[in-house]
């Protein structure tokens, strides 16, 4: 169970090393010490999962970009997002944080000394 829904907001997992090569992406995932290659719509989806929009909005952008049928793209993006969560490449952000526009990384920053 990944708990990924169309309203989920996903972002890249911390610590990833990402290289964009033309229309493909190579990702180093340090926790599993694995390289992943994403191509085509998977690469585009991964790049768009930056914690700023819910999945359903990401699917709309991809459908428009690829001129594809929106319902099918919504389904495919949801499935892909679940796979990416399972691989540890992206993770859901909590609604409260994203509504406030604050990522977990921001929350965890230690206070700056004056």
């Amino acid at each position, binding site marked *: 169970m990944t708990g990924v829904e169309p309203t989920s907001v996903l972002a890249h997992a911390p610590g990833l*090393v990402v290289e964009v*090569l033309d229309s493909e992406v190579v990702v180093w995932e340090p926790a599993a010490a694995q390289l992943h290659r994403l191509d085509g719509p998977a690469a585009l989806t991964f790049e768009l999962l930056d914690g700023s929009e819910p999945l359903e909005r990401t699917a709309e952008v991809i459908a428009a970009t690829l001129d594809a049928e929106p319902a099918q793209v919504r389904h495919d993006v949801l499935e892909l997002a679940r796979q990416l969560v399972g691989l540890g490449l992206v993770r859901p952000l909590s609604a409260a944080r994203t509504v406030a526009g604050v990522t977990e990384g921001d929350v965890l920053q230690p206070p700056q000394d004056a």
Partner: protein
Amino acid sequence: MAMVLGPYDALGHVFTVTVAEDRLGECIARTLEALGTTCQPRLEYSVAAVPGPRPDWYELRRDGEPVMPAMEGSLVLDWLAWAVNQGAIESGRQQNLLMHAAGVARDGLGVVLAAPMESGKTTTCTGLVRDGWSYLTDEAVAVDPATLRVRAFPKALTIDPGSQFLFPELRPELPSSSGQKWQVPPHSIRPGCVTTDVPVGLLLLPAYREGASTELQPLTPAQAVMELAQCTFFFIEQPERNLAALAQLARTAPCYRLVIGALDEAVTLVNELPHLVSA
């Protein structure tokens, strides 16, 4: 009377070799000649005769410590080459992206032939050098991650028994038992063939397949990175640096899988590639 050979530089692994037996010493000197340096040696290999089941029984030591149990003379070169390779990889990986690959060059641009063992790296490399290409290495391509230039490691080429029939003129002078590797100094293939550091112009992934049609199959940059990462020594130790360097290599140099059915066809294909044009 022992002779001290060297110093030699294998990707910063700088060493001398002390050997007591003249003929073996001459053979080692010829084999390591292209690694000669003026740098200060940091360690010493020594080869000395020891009592054993045969008259030609030797022990190989590194700074006084045995590298391997004592062995017959015809195996000394193989184990010395092995020990030097290990030292080169240990030394070279600190500052470089280090790939299990052969390297050749033409017109100042390098070709990296990266692949696992038994894929045809050394065979293709030897064929290309014989055909006029310059020699960088047949074992470990060291790429400076800042400049993306290959640092030469012109060790003797290690030709496996299965490929030796392709290069009968390279049979070593030192008697060797059948089924043994050949340690071939690069100058034996073609005098003056060793080159210095060059930028990378082409990435090839050789794959020998008996009976296959020899052909080049283009790879996308991301496919190239995935393949090259598998050939990178200790990738996991500096993944960010290594991935960035591989990605930059794949952006700047085209990459092909070179399916090899026959050596002469492979050499012809690589010769005809139009990519090695200096910018």
